[in-house]
C-alpha cells in the first residue's frame, strides 16, 4: 500500500520504519530540512521536503495514488489541513490524524476527520496504568464499534466484591473477558466466577456506558 506520512518528527519517523518493515511504500512529507536529512540517512530516499498543506507539494508526492494519509505533526491545524485536502480534494480512501489537543477530537469529527489519535490522552492513560492509582484504565478504543477495552480493578467494599460475575448489573453490551487475580492464576471468567477485592478485569464496554460500568467496581 502507498502511504503518505505527514510530519517526520519522532512519531512520523518511527511509524515510517514500522510501515516499511511491513513492506509498504512510504513517503514522509516534512517541513524541516534537517529532519528530512536525518530520515533519509537512516531509511533511504523517501522524504519530501515541504509543507503537506500545499497542494503543489502533495501533487509532487503522488497524492493521487496514495491509499492512506497519516498526519502526525505536532500542530493540529496542520494535521487537519493535510487530512482534509487529502480526503476531499484527492479522495484518499483513508486518512488518520494525530491530535495534540484533546478538545480537537470533536472539532475534527465535525469537520469530517473522524479517525483521530489523541496523543495526550493515550500517553496519560498508559501512565495512569503504571501508577496503579486509578481504578479504570482505557486500554484501547474500537472507534467504529463504539467500544472500549478497559482494565478495571475491583475496589475495596465496591458493589462487586464477593459477587459472581453473573449477578453484577453490568451495563448493556459489556463483556468481562478475563480476570487477573493476584493469588490464583488468571482465568477466563464464567458467570459463577466470584470477584474479590483487588482483582483486575479486562472488559469490553460500550463507550457511552463507561461511567455506569465504573460505578460497579468503585471502592469506598
Amino acid at each position: 500500500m502507498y502511504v503518505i506520512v505527514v510530519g517526520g518528527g519522532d512519531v512520523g519517523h518511527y511509524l515510517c520504519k514500522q510501515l516499511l518493515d511491513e513492506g509498504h511504500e512510504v513517503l514522509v512529507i516534512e517541513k524541516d530540512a534537517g529532519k528530512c536529512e536525518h530520515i533519509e540517512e537512516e531509511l533511504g530516499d523517501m522524504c519530501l521536503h515541504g509543507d503537506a498543506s500545499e497542494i503543489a507539494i502533495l501533487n509532487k508526492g503522488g497524492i493521487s495514488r496514495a491509499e492512506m494519509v497519516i498526519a502526525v505533526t505536532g500542530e493540529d491545524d496542520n494535521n487537519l489541513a493535510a487530512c482534509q485536502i487529502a480526503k476531499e480534494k484527492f479522495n484518499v480512501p483513508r486518512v488518520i490524524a494525530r491530535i495534540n489537543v484533546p478538545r480537537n477530537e470533536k472539532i475534527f469529527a465535525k469537520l469530517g476527520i473522524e479517525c483521530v489519535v489523541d496523543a495526550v490522552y493515550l500517553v496519560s492513560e498508559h501512565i495512569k496504568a503504571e501508577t496503579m492509582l486509578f481504578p479504570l484504565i482505557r486500554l484501547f478504543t474500537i472507534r467504529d464499534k463504539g467500544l472500549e477495552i478497559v482494565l478495571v480493578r475491583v475496589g475495596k467494599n465496591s458493589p462487586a466484591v464477593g459477587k459472581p460475575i453473573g449477578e453484577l448489573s453490568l451495563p448493556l453490551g459489556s463483556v468481562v473477558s478475563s480476570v487477573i487475580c493476584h493469588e490464583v492464576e488468571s482465568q477466563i471468567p464464567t458467570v459463577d466466577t466470584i470477584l474479590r477485592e483487588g482483582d483486575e478485569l479486562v472488559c469490553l464496554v460500550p463507550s457511552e456506558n463507561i461511567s455506569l460500568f465504573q460505578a460497579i467496581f468503585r471502592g469506598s
Partner: protein
Amino acid sequence: MGCGRIGAELAHLLDVEGHKVTVIDVDNASFDKLPPDFSGMAFLGDATDEEVLRKAGMEQADVFVAVTRDDELNAMAAQIAKQIFDVPRVLCRIYDPLREDFYSGLGVEAISPTRVFVRLLKERLEG
C-alpha cells in the same frame, strides 16, 4: 482573529464605521497595533478553542474573519466559526492560491492575498 497589521487595520476601520468589533490574538503585544481610540474589545486567547470563542461572544457574531499569518490556523478557525457556531459570514486569508478554491468549497470565503496582489500588479503593468 489575528491582530497583525491587517487584522488591526480592519478592526479599526470597522470600529470607526460603528460596528461592534472583537479582536482575538494569542499575543498580548499584538494589541498595541490597535489605535488608542479603538472602542471594540481585545480578547487574548486561541481562536481554535471553542470555549475561548464562546467567551469572546462568537454565538452573537454576524461575521468572523481569520487573518493570522498561518493558512492552516486560519482555515481551522474559519471552519469552526462556520460549522460549529454557524456564523453567517466567514472569511479567511489563505496565502496559497491553489488552496483558495478548496476552502471556498468548504463553505468559508477564502481570499488569497497572493492572487489578489498578482492581479493588481498585472493590471498596473497593463494599464
